[in-house]
């Protein structure tokens, strides 16, 4: 048994502890609407036992400070999903801009990338018309006019893609600056937390750090590593260290072949950042994968069409009687890369169009027919020019749809997790078990809805082969 004084000490301690707990609750209420604020609960710690004459007795609890109701595993899951959602959202915005270039409604009726499909048809049709009246000056002029429109729209599209790439470069650099500001802040908070609360939750400081990490997750894909004394190290998903306890390593930018590269120290981390997630990942995916892919398709189209048409024109006889030497209609491309941007019409005199085949005389039309027939020839990567263009635009549309689907699902996931986190960390009356039950109920109900839909779909399509969630 303890003494009377130690019993009093215990009672007083308990009262003090109660008061401290009330202060924590008051703080929660006062900060109910503070963004990023995490609910705090009082942490109780039993005092050292009092030992008298060889026997021990308890000495009551002491309130040792506030411990935030946070869960790093859940918070990291939210951050991880946020990184994916930010990356797909940013990429989707960029893809929508790219797709808008090739939308028929996007440009003027006379010249736009969206008209390339029609331009191809008009160009080859103009040779069909010329075949019917090969000496007509106006029809020859129409051929050059159609060629000019096609070349202008193709090079215009390539130029717009190049501009978008420059804009994405700037956006990505801006994000890197924001990342650096946040990592510097996190490093500073690490130092403060490790100094003031090495063994316990640091309350407001930890809230600030979580808020910074949450924002960082929107900008870049990261891994979080908890270190000793409540420290936190952060790396990119590819392993480059951004924060190591009290110090941060900034992401720096440098130009390489006109393209902005990202470095941590001396290491080029651009490729890792591209696949890593966050806005930076989204911008870099659009810049380094999506735009180059579309540009390469346009280059292939421009290269194949101009090379084939030039070759046939040089094989025929023009109105001046030049045989096998009539000249190029389109600018000559030495290689596929860059062909779209440089596509143009170099022929100025319509009389140099070789409508006649060699040996036919200047009034012949066999060569015009041969060029017109290119519209049905599979010379662009095994496809006709129009089919190639259509399939590349369809492929772009499918990519946009896929990324849109991913983004919708990822945002839904973030919303769910934040709801769960609110039940744990935010100041409200819902308890965690109730929130878990809601999630379970929602999942079960949704599964049943999906199952019914599957039945309806299988029935409507009469396939007997149901869609599965895998």
């Amino acid at each position: 048994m303890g003494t009377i004084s130690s019993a009093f000490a215990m009672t007083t301690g308990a009262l003090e502890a109660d008061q401290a707990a009330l202060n924590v609750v008051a703080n929660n209420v006062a900060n109910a609407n503070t963004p990023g604020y995490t609910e705090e609960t009082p942490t109780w710690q039993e005092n050292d036992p009092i030992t008298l004459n060889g026997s021990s007795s308890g000495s009551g609890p002491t309130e040792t400070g506030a411990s935030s109701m946070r869960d790093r595993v859940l918070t990291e899951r939210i951050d991880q999903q946020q990184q994916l959602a930010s990356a797909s959202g940013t990429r989707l915005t960029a893809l929508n801009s790219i797709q808008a270039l090739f939308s028929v409604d996007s440009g003027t009726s006379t010249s736009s990338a969206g008209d390339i499909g029609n331009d191809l048809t008009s160009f080859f049709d103009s040779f069909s018309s010329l075949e019917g009246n090969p000496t007509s000056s106006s029809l020859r002029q129409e051929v050059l006019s159609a060629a000019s429109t096609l070349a202008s729209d193709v090079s215009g599209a390539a130029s717009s893609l190049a501009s978008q790439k420059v804009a994405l470069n700037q956006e990505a650099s801006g994000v890197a600056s924001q990342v650096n500001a946040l990592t510097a802040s996190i490093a500073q908070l690490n130092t403060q937390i490790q100094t003031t609360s090495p063994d316990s939750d640091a309350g407001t400081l930890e809230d600030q750090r979580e808020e910074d990490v949450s924002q960082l997750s929107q900008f870049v894909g990261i891994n979080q590593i908890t270190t000793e004394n409540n420290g936190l190290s952060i790396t990119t998903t590819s392993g480059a260290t951004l924060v190591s306890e009290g110090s941060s390593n900034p992401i720096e930018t440098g130009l390489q072949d006109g393209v902005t590269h990202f470095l941590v120290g001396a290491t080029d981390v651009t490729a890792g950042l591209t696949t890593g997630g966050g806005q930076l990942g989204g911008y870099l995916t659009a810049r380094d994968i999506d735009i180059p892919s579309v540009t390469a398709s346009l280059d292939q189209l421009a290269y194949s069409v101009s090379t084939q048409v030039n070759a046939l024109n040089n094989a025929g006889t023009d109105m001046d009687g030049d045989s096998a030497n009539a000249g190029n209609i389109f600018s000559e491309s030495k290689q596929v890369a860059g062909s779209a941007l440089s596509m143009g019409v170099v022929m100025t005199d319509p009389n140099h169009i070789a409508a006649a085949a060699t040996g036919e005389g200047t009034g012949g039309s066999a060569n015009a027919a041969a060029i017109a027939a290119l519209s049905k020839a599979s010379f662009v990567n095994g496809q006709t020019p129009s089919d190639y263009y259509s399939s590349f635009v369809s492929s772009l549309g499918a990519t946009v749809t896929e990324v849109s689907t991913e983004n919708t699902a990822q945002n839904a996931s973030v919303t769910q997790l934040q709801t769960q986190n609110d039940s744990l960390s935010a100041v409200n009356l819902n308890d965690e078990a109730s929130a878990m039950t809601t999630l379970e109920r929602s999942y079960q109900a949704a599964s049943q809805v999906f199952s019914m839909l599957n039945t309806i779909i299988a029935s409507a399509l009469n396939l007997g082969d149901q869609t599965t969630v895998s």
Partner: protein
Amino acid sequence: MGERNEREMISQIGRNRRYIELKDFIREASRALAKLDADRLSELRSLFQELSRVAAEVDVKGQARLTLQVRDASKEMKVFARVIEATRDNLQVLYRLRDSRDGNLEYSAFLRGAGVFRGSSNGND
């Protein structure tokens, strides 16, 4: 959208394609799941039960229209499937968290070290 209106819309499926869009209901299901609106999902479950019954009764022409709607809703169905997958993953994370708090997983020691469960073993038990 009131439940009665929805039921009226459902009853039209297979008869007037412009009046009812299956994809809107699927989109609504994705939204409800994202917001964890279990009550709304239960309502939708009832509606799809009704839809399933109506779909079985429509004539050949109605069946063709329903098929068109189903094909038109493929993107929404894909999104819904992805949201369900994400929900299942999130549920797994939360189950593991619950287990870790209950001390059933090894990394519960990490959580105790973070200060959440401090103060339970120090003293004169």
